Every structure is written in C-alpha cells, then in structure tokens.
C-alpha cells in the first residue's frame, strides 16, 4: 500500500508551556514566545526510523521540508517529496499537503486532534493514521505511541494482510477556547477510515471474543423493535447513538442530532427549539452515546439537546449505548453530565443502565462535572 506522511511541525507545542493546544497562529506564536520546542518532528522520526528498520528501502511520499522530508535524514527509505513549498503556519499547510497525496492509500500524520480534524476534512475517504504528538488526542485515529505507528506503517507497506480498516473511527476535538477557560468540551467532527492490526492474539480460552460493534448493532435492533411508535426519540451524535437510526434503516446526520418518531427520522440535524416543538404532546426519550476517555453523556457536543428536554426525559428517559470496551477504558468509571442547570445535573446523578449489547447492560454512575 502507498503511504503519504505529513508532519504538523507545530503540534504539541502548547503542552510544554501550559497551553492546552495550539490551534491557530496566535497560539503557535504565543507558545514559541514562551520557549516551546516542537516535538512532532522527533516523534515522527521515531515512527519513520522504525519503518526503515522493519522495511529497509520502503517507498514513501513525504511533505516537503519540516512537514516531513527533514525528519528522514539518514534513514533507509525511498522518498517522493510533494506538498507546499512555502509554509503559512496554519491549517492550510496541512490541508494542502494532504491534497497533494490524495492518490495514496493511507495518510500518516504527526499531530494531535486539531491536525486529525484538518486531515480528515480533506482526506475524502482515504485511510488516516496519527503519530501521537498533540496535547489533545481524543480521536480514535492514533497509534498508541510513535513506534506502534511505525509498526503499522511497516505492515501497511510490507504485509498489508495483517491490516484491517475500520470506517467509522471518531475524529474528536476539544474546543480550545473553552478548554483554556477550564471547560473540557470534546466534540465529534467526523468519521475517518483508520487501519488497525489484525489481532494475532491468544484467542480466548473462554471461546470466541466479543464483537463489540456487532453487539451494539444487535442491541440497537432490539431497541428499534421495542420502540413505542408515538414517542419522540432524540438521537444524539456519534456512532453508538446513531446505530439505532441505522438499525431502523434510516440515515442519520453524522454530527448532528436527529429526531425519530414511528421508527423514522422526521427531522435531521435539529436544534433545541425544533426538538421542543416536536416533543409537544409526546413522550420523549433521548438516545445517547458516551465520549471516549472522559465519559461525557450530556453537555459536550450535544448541546442541541437542551436542559428542558433532558428534564422532561429524566434519568429514566435516557437510552445510552456504548461498547463494553469503551466503558472499561474510561479514565474514571463514571459518566459526566453538564446540562448548564446544576439542579438538573444533580437529579441525573446516580446509576443508569448502559446498553452494551442485545440483552446486555452495564451499570454506570452519572456524575455532574
């Protein structure tokens, strides 16, 4: 397979100097003023060196200069150089470099969530893989470390049979302005195609492994089968919640909130006001996923579902879907809500049943944040 490599030379700058990310030229300049040194190039080199060690002479397309080329010096790789000649220090550089590599199978980038967003916005369905370098890495597109990303590159080049692709890895980012004000607000920005290792694992003494994604879609089918036809179902953003719409044969809007009545989507990408109108005179339930790592349930990326609606639904009216994997990998074993109304958050606190598969639930604690 053909790989293109793009390094965001400014990724990860903020972390070293106490900024929480470096989206935008102002932040970059500030970070540099504060004496930050970019690590992304060095981390990209670790991955590239690992590739060269595993597959000497591997063919690779790189962006010019410090966006790629510079980090391969002395490595046994066969390079093609492309991309912008003069850098602006903004997302435009990254996007332009990716556009120049559109005929590759996979774009490997060194950066964080911000870079992932930029890459995904122009990747147009080609695979992407992150060498983790950013301050924020909530997206499901990164290797666990630069070496692992290098190992994946080696497999892509030399042994593609060891690689599978998932089509719906979530590209997440946190609103950096909000974050600098102390509010953690991850948002789903899109879905990306990402290579994953076929697991050559010690299979299961206990038999077949659980297929999480499969478990979730059969759970979604169960939910659809049991849907009350009069009730309004508000479908939150993200693959987990939208698996319900999918199970009903409907196409959900990837990033937005949809409304379902009678097993059909009656309104796409709706805001709070329209939802309130739709909910008039009806019972309502809210179908939600969980954000990875932090475990946000409400108030991050789904603010369209306002407090009034949540209050009407109550804790009992929340239908939460998440894979067991995601739940067991949360940084704290709890789900967070931030509806903007502290008394409502307090009402929601307590245990809920999260659906993890057909006839499978996990008890999760809801906390206000």
């Amino acid at each position, binding site marked *: 397979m053909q790989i293109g490599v793009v390094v965001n030379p400014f990724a990860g700058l903020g972390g070293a100097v106490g900024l929480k990310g470096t989206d935008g030229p102002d932040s970059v300049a500030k970070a540099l003023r504060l004496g930050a040194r970019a690590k992304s190039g060095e981390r990209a080199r670790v991955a590239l060196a690992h590739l060269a060690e595993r597959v000497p002479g591997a063919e690779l397309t790189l962006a010019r200069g410090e966006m790629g080329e510079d980090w391969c010096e002395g490595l046994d790789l066969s390079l093609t150089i492309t991309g912008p000649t003069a850098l602006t220090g903004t997302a435009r550089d990254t996007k332009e470099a990716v556009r120049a590599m559109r005929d590759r199978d996979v774009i490997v980038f060194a950066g964080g969530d911000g870079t992932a967003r930029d890459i995904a916005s122009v990747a147009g369905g080609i695979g992407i893989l992150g060498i983790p370098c950013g301050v924020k890495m909530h997206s499901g597109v990164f290797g666990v470390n630069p070496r692992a990303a290098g190992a994946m590159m080696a497999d892509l080049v030399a042994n593609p049979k060891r690689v599978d692709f998932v089509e719906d890895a979530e590209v997440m980012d946190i609103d950096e302005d909000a974050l600098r004000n102390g509010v953690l607000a991850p948002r789903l920005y899109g879905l990306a195609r990402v290579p994953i290792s076929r697991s050559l694992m010690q*299979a299961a003494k206990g038999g077949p492994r659980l*297929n999480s994604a499969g478990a979730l879609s059969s759970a979604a089918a169960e939910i659809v089968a049991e849907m009350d036809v009069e009730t309004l179902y508000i479908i939150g953003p993200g693959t987990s919640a939208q698996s319900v719409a999918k199970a009903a044969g409907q196409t959900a809007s990837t990033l937005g909130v949809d409304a379902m009545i009678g097993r059909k989507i009656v309104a796409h990408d709706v805001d709070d006001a329209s939802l309130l109108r739709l909910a008039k005179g009806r019972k309502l339930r809210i179908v939600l996923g969980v954000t990875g790592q932090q475990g946000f349930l409400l108030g991050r990326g789904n603010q369209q579902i306002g407090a009034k609606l949540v209050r009407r639904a109550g804790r009992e009216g929340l239908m939460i879907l998440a894979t067991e994997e995601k739940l067991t990998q949360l940084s704290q074993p709890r789900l967070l809500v931030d509806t903007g109304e502290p008394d409502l958050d307090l009402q929601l606190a307590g245990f809920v049943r999260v659906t993890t598969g057909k006839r499978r639930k996990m008890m999760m604690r809801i906390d206000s944040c």
Partner: protein
Amino acid sequence: MATNTRAHPWMANSAPGAIQAMLDEIGASSVDEVFEQIPKDHFRSAPLDLPPILSSEVELKRDLVSKLKKNEDCETNLSFLGAGVWQHHVPAVVDEIVGRTEFATNVWGSYQSDHGRNQSWFEFSSQLGALLNLDVVQLPVYSWGCAIGHSIRMAQRITGRSRVLISQLSDPERLSVIQTYCQPTEMDSHIEVQQVAVDPLSGRMDISDLASKMGDDVAAVYFENPAYLGTIETEAVKIASMARFAGAETIVGVDPLSLGVMTAPGDYGADIVTGPVQPLGVHMQCGGGVGGFIASRDEEKYVLEYNGFLVSIVETMKKGEVGFGLACPHQNSYGSREHGKDWTGNSTYLWAIAGAVYMSLLGPEGFRELGNLIVSRARYAAKCLADVPGIQIVWPNSTFKEFVVNFDDTGKKVAEVNDLLRERGIFGGKDISKENNALGQSALYCVTEVHTAADIRRLVRTLKEVLS
C-alpha cells in the same frame, strides 16, 4: 498456619524454611499478613473436617483400588449396554498417546509452543471430515446431547425461527439435555421442541407426520442415523429436501463407526451433523468418556455460528511451513447477528486427540471392516435372540449395532430378566420399558466388534435358561 511436619511431595515450598524465606523477602512478618485483604469476619468459623490424610502413595493407591474394586466391569462381565456410551475396542496406541504427559498437562500455550497438540486437533477434524464428507468440523463439545443443543441454537440464529422437529423416539438422556438448551417456555428466547411420530413398522420418522408439522416457522429437523433405537433412516434424502423446501436446517446425528459402511451425511443433504466421539477410541469410563462433535459445510452462515474451537491450517512466517490456530470469524462485520453464540470453555479436547489416533490407525479399510463386523454380529445376535421363546425383535432387519428386544411374551419384566442375567455375569440391554414408547417390556441391546459369536450364543443360552 497449618502445621505439617513432613514436606508434601506435591509442594516444593512445604520444605522446612521455604515459606519463611519468601516471607522474609516480601517483608511480611507472618503468613496471616499476606491475607490482609480478607476481613477477619470472613474467615470460616468451622474448621475443616475432612477424612484423614492418605499421606503416602502406598496408602492412596490402596484406598483408590480397594474402592474401585467394588465395581463390576464390562471386561469381566459380558455387557450389552449402549445408548450413549458403547463398548468398543480401544487400540493400545491410543491409550499411550492420550496418556502422554505433554497432552495431559498443556493448558493453552501459543500456536507455536503447542504446535503438536494443535496439529493433532486439526487431524481429528480432518479425518472426521473425511468420514462425514464435510469441510468444517469443530473440536468436540461436552457431549453428543450438548452438540445437538448447540446445533439447534445455531439453526435458530441462522433462520430466526424457534421451532425444532425431532423424533418421538428420542433418547431421553439426550432429549433432557436438548430441552435444557432450548430453555423453559416462560422465556422469550425459548425454542419449541416438537416431536414427530415414528412409523411403527420401521422405527423411522413418519414422513406424513413430518410434512404436517413442517412449516415456515421451523428452524430445523433433527434426526439420527442410526437412530436411538438402532434403526437406519433410509428416507434421509427426503427429510433433508423437505426441510430445505421449508427453509429449515437439517441436523443429523450419526455414529462415526457406522461411516465405513453407511453413506456420509454430507452426501444426503445434512446441513449440520453431530455425533458422539466416545466410540472413536475412548473408554466408557462410566460415562466420563463422552464428547460430541459438530460439523457442517464450509459456508459462512454456518462457520460464523459455531460456539467453540475451529482449528484452521495456516501458513507461518517461514516459507513453505504450516501451523494451526483458531479461526476467529467473530471479528468480521456480521453485526446483524441476533443472539450471542452460546459459550465454550474447557471441553473434551483430549478426546479429539484420541479420535485422531484412532482414525489414523483404522484408515478407510479399517472403518469398512469394523462397520461390517458390527452390523453382522448385531444382526446375528438379533436373529438368534428372536429364536428364544417369548422374545421378539421389534425391527429385526433395519438396524446397525443396537436393536430393541421385546420380552412381553416371556411374562417377565426387563428389570427381572436383567437381574437374572446379572447373577450370571451378563449385563442385559438398557431397560426402555418406562420410556413412554409403546414398546412394552423392551430392552435396547448393543452388539459391537468386542462381542464374538460365542458371546452371542452365551447370551442366548443364558436367556433361554432364565426365561424357562
């Protein structure tokens, strides 16, 4: 801490000072300290009160052997018991191989470290596949009944239907297991087990009753060939085509030792095939030798629904070399699956190795000779028994190794006859008189390659004696 003055032969660290040395390294002052996680009031109040220790091998062996010698066995006695466990010859090489400590003690390992075991497993499936004429054979599950239970649940998942048709004359032991697997009627995912009448003249499934019960809500038809009461199902092709027409799966149960002489189920339309592994080189062990296989064609709709271990041959990183490992289709995107795939855990995998050795010893000619020998002697036994006054053979000319012997006209109950035989060193056939089969005072007799013509004459002679 327990006090033992002598070190125990099975515990190296029971030697004096060994525990203390480790405690010193840990920095714990006592054994109690390492149990600090357990609250004091959780420790048992009643001290252990077990039978006295048998502290030497001499004493242990004496205890075991003296107890076991209170059993009577089928080597000293002449046994005609079958029905789920059958007395067959076990070649000595099979005993040697399954007794190998490497095979007895391995637990999982890796595909490389336990390559030999994995290859043996693959060879079990490969050879059984050659007998069945089917491409996929799973490693054995707990028993034949469990294999049938899993197969029915596979059929439920494949078809989305929840009714299964089986013969009215099913083995009650296996039927009980099947009903457990199909769940009580109160549960949503319950599978209805409906019985199909049997043609009283042949013991075979009643085709018109089957037709009347077939429908588009039937997940599967299950029949055995030979059946529980020994009869050979000659209408197998017809049954399978009726099932296919209704969109149902055909599940068959076969005796693997019949397959040198009987048609392979893969050749008459069976979709999923089950059977016992005990006949393939495993001693009866009071029922502790049972296991059950599941096989099918190599189609994804079946392969993705197996519950246990499917061993596939694969290439290794070294050119031209092969190894073996578990096919894990669960990682594919078959998200529409309706139910979970049951469960697996420890099973009866040692018997897969026994079966591999057994089948490699017999080869195609061995299976043919064995099948001929069994059916010949069993029919001979049936024929000779038919000459005993008062005895009738229910289906005399359509059986493989088991057959029903009716004692109604002898004026004696089967239990009485068996008591009299037992006094004379013979275990009569299984008493089936309480099995609600309209067969009166009947017993299911089993004759195999271990029964000589002389043994059969002895049975006949003794029966004449005790019935007169």
